[in-house]
């Protein structure tokens, strides 16, 4: 009886703490549904009593191309990341390359380089190559957010694949490429999914590379769309917040559908090397 009470009490406290933590998100949704004229009211409208979708209408008509660009960039980054990271992770985990530990070390260090340095360097290079304001340019830059992380996570996972399995494939005459494609990759499905999710989120959320590499024209992601909204129409906060709500959907969907992958990714990226 007492224990059941303690458990319920904890649930109640947990819900309250969660409510405090997520309050800004509630506020984002609330503002997105509030009519523009009510936004300046004091006290602020705490609940969306007179709901309006004018913010969403504005957001969709203004921001849809930006959101589409972001989707293309995010999927491009996922494909590039997996294509580069999966073979590397396999080699580091199972093929004992001489000097492999140097690569692992470089990957750990690479994750620590501040983005502003990478972005300034990319800007100078892209200016010479004519890659500024292009989709491939931004996808390549965004992939640097995910490749080192992706290799380290997949490597940690692939180490756990039993060597006997790979030996057996070799005895049966499978080449190393064949072994990688038909045994290692299918067995590493969970790690590949985790890395893909994170690569998607990293690219979807990127603001720094976008603002430096694509701010002078060409296709732009929604992060810049919102940023221009803030700078230009600072009165239309319901449209800004409506765009923010739409932009939050991928993360929210991912966390509901793939919660265990995400916790696994955070812990693997941080604790193991």
């Amino acid at each position, binding site marked *: 009886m007492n224990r059941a009470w303690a458990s319920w009490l904890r649930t109640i406290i947990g819900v309250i703490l969660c409510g405090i933590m997520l309050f800004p*998100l509630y506020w984002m949704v609330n503002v997105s549904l509030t009519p523009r004229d009510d936004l300046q009211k004091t006290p602020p409208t705490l609940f969306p009593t007179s709901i309006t979708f004018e913010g969403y209408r504005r957001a969709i008509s203004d921001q849809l191309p930006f959101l589409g660009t972001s989707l293309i960039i995010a999927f491009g980054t996922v494909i590039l990341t997996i294509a580069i990271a999966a073979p590397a992770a396999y080699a580091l985990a199972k093929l004992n*390359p001489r000097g492999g530990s140097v690569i692992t070390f470089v990957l750990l*260090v690479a994750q620590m380089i501040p983005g*502003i340095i990478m972005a300034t360097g990319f800007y100078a290079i892209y200016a010479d190559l004519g890659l500024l304001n292009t989709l491939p340019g931004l996808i390549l830059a965004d992939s640097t957010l995910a490749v080192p992380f992706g290799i380290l996570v997949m490597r940690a996972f692939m180490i756990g694949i039993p060597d006997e399995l790979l030996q057996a494939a070799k005895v049966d005459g499978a080449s190393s490429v064949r072994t990688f494609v038909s045994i290692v990759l299918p067995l590493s499905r969970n790690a590949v999914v985790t890395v893909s999710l994170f690569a998607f989120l990293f690219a979807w959320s990127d603001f720094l590379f976008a603002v430096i590499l694509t701010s002078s024209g060409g296709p732009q992601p929604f992060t810049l769309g919102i940023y221009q909204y803030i700078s230009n129409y600072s009165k239309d906060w319901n449209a800004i917040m409506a765009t923010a709500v739409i932009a939050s959907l991928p993360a929210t969907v991912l*966390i509901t559908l793939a919660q265990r992958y995400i916790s696994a990714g955070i812990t693997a990226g*941080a604790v193991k090397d």
Partner: protein
Amino acid sequence: MSSTQSRRTQWTAWGFLTPVVVYLLLFYAYPIGRNLVMGFQNYTARSFVTGEAPYIGLDNYRAVTSSPLFWPTVRHTVIFVVVSLAFQFTIGLGLAQFFTRHFRLSALLRSLFLLPWLLPLIVSASTWRWMFDKDSGIVNYALSLAGIPAEGWTVDPHLSLIAVIVVNIWIGVPFNMVVLYGGLQSIPESLYEAAALDGAGPWKMFTRITLPLLKPVTAVVLLLGLVYTLKVFDIIWITTQGGPANSSQTLATWSYQLSFGPRLQFGLGAAAGNILIVVALIFGLIYIRSQRNQEQL
């Protein structure tokens, strides 16, 4: 036989590694190298057009470190990092401890806590910017209920650094919570049971068992957190643009401001960025070393 075989395995292994080696050279080494070189050049907007960027030795570094903005920027960076980490860690540990006991909905609530960390920073930062609004923001309204007068959190030079720190703490708590929760899970329950039999109270258990056994994970969270917090650009730039009057400028935003601000002084921006990289790498290497030592134990 075995030596030719091992040579062949080496060839295969490096075959699989070649793409990533090329990738690291082109998309890491080259931009970083380019940035390093720019730090020694008089690199301006004109340089992109004419291709002329004369080498000027350490002039950029001299100009950056003797700028009246240098020490205030360093001070903001240190305050930003230290205060953020202290609060993120304390709150994260408290929440992790709270979630170690299973209760109804605990798994669901724990995963909801991750949301702030996974959302695009532009979303979180612009939401906070509106919450901090002087006239219509919910923060000032809540404070007014407690009798505190309205403040312009993002537009007052005395408050802007506090505002960006608050946003950064909010975003960093989930990471701390998840990693510390993992650490707490690995402390054997039997230790607490034995201590309870010896009559130890909750505080004693926390200071004598939890904290010492959590030390390796604490090192991970704080060192990685430090490296990540030094890098923070988006949150500050979207919330305050480093202002007003540079009052929330850190090394990362200052480097951006120098390179891409109205005067396009890429050489100076690169120099400021390179100072940042050195600091980040020092702590990064300490982190990697602490991880290695742990693995050897």
